[in-house]
């Protein structure tokens, strides 16, 4: 590996990518391929009380509308299922049940012969909810904040030296602030965007 690090190396998939020959997910066309459009929740928290897909189902070219009520049984929907390579916590289970956990949560999947038909039919699906109050703004909840107790035994970092350096830099900062001729204090919020490769 070492000789390649820092060396400009032409990518083996370079020609395919610059000529449009490289295939990405969703680019494998086949006869009879169906297309789907996702209907997403318009509330952030609550329960679905009713889904009326009758208008969507009556659009020519629509094959089916999947919801939590009629989705096929899936192993990943089992509450015991854990994804070995995913982060800790509960994996995302689409169309699992009637609970809404976040704004934009998929609540129905409209499947059709053409993508535009799926998209149009998706706009005809009616979903009714029992909405609950949601809490998403950390700043508005500050009054409800609970102080963390300092751990009796601070966790060891992998590199003991790194742990000590971090501790030293916090103390260093406190000392400097106490004696600085002027202090600029500012809080800023990062945007919600993440940058990930498309494929």
């Amino acid at each position, binding site marked *: 590996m070492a000789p390649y690090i820092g060396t400009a190396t032409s990518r083996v998939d370079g020609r395919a990518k610059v000529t449009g020959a490289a295939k990405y997910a969703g680019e494998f066309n086949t006869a009879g391929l169906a297309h789907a459009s996702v209907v997403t929740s*318009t509330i952030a928290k609550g329960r679905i009380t009713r889904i009326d897909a009758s208008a969507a189902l009556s659009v020519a070219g629509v094959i089916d509308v999947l919801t939590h009520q009629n989705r096929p049984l899936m192993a990943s929907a089992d509450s015991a299922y854990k994804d070995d390579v995913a982060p800790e916590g509960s994996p995302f289970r689409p169309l699992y049940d009637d609970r809404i956990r976040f704004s934009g949560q998929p609540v129905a999947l409209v499947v059709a012969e053409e993508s*535009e038909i799926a*998209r*149009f039919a998706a*706009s005809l699906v009616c979903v009714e909810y029992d909405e609950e109050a949601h809490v998403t703004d950390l700043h508005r909840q500050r009054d409800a904040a609970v102080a963390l107790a300092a751990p009796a035994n601070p966790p060891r970092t992998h590199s003991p030296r790194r742990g000590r350096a971090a501790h030293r830099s916090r103390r260093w900062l406190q000392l400097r602030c106490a004696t600085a001729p002027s202090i600029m204090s500012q809080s800023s919020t990062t945007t919600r965007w993440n940058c990930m490769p498309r494929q």
Partner: protein
Amino acid sequence: MINFHYARATDVADAVRQIAADPRAKFIAGGTNLIDLLKEDVERPSRLIDISRLPLKSVEETAEGGLRIGALVPNSDLAYHPLITQRHPMLASAILAGASAQLRNMATTDGNLLQRTRCYYFYDTATPCNKREPGSGCSAIAGLNRMHAILGASEACIATHPSDMCVALAALDATVHVAGPAGARGIAFSDFHRLPENTPQCDTNLQPNEIITAVELPARGFTVNYSYLKIRDRLSYAFALVSVATGLELEGDTIKEARLALGGVAHKPWRDPSAEAALRGQAANQSTFTRAADLMLRDAKGFEHNAFKIDLAHRAIIRALTQASRGTPQSQSNKKIR
């Protein structure tokens, strides 16, 4: 996206006839805003009348020494047209500050005037919006309103007009030429876009079934002392938080004529005759510019997430006027604001 019929218009009279025949029909030219709104189900026309092939694509000189810009001239063609770059560089600069090269190649003069607000709630059909559905409420007033208006808003709507080109057209005192069932007429640019008042569903004073045929510019172009200064959350390809179009005619150090229009702050490009009057006859200096900025913003009202725009606009006005007075207009490619 709704299932719509598609038809083409053969000439202006045919376009007017077709749109009059179907109250839910809409014209489509470049489509860069309309197709976006169709995909979001904000617009659901029964029919699209394609006017993109009408012969309204030229820029011509008028008898009065002005310019007549065809409604279908692409934004990029307009920005690079020799008659525009020579006589109205403020307009060219403003156009190049907007959108992306691809969108400027597609977008037309009339579409730029008629484009709709990019308010997040206008776009989200799951939220109340008086512009989309009169009487349903305005979600932005008590919601996320960073991009929203600080001038001329109403209790019904605080949306802004997103165009850059229109800010320059407002400063240049353009006239919008339209044709309709009742014939042809010209609309002063300041009367073209509306304030929201209690009718936010009406963006403009176009009558039903009217089509824009041209935009006319008067002879006066501010070729030396002008600037279009656009402040936004990133360096390119974003709508204005605040923008300023300004043009000055100087005699030595004295301002003989002044134009000042703001974008990103209201339902229409914002001009204030009192601010311009306060510039005329004065020395082109910091205190004169400050007075004009004070006047422009005296009725400014911020909301929870956009009150910063008031101070930002104040500084931007002074900076743009300074740039114009020095003959150093803001470059739209070198982003440093000098």
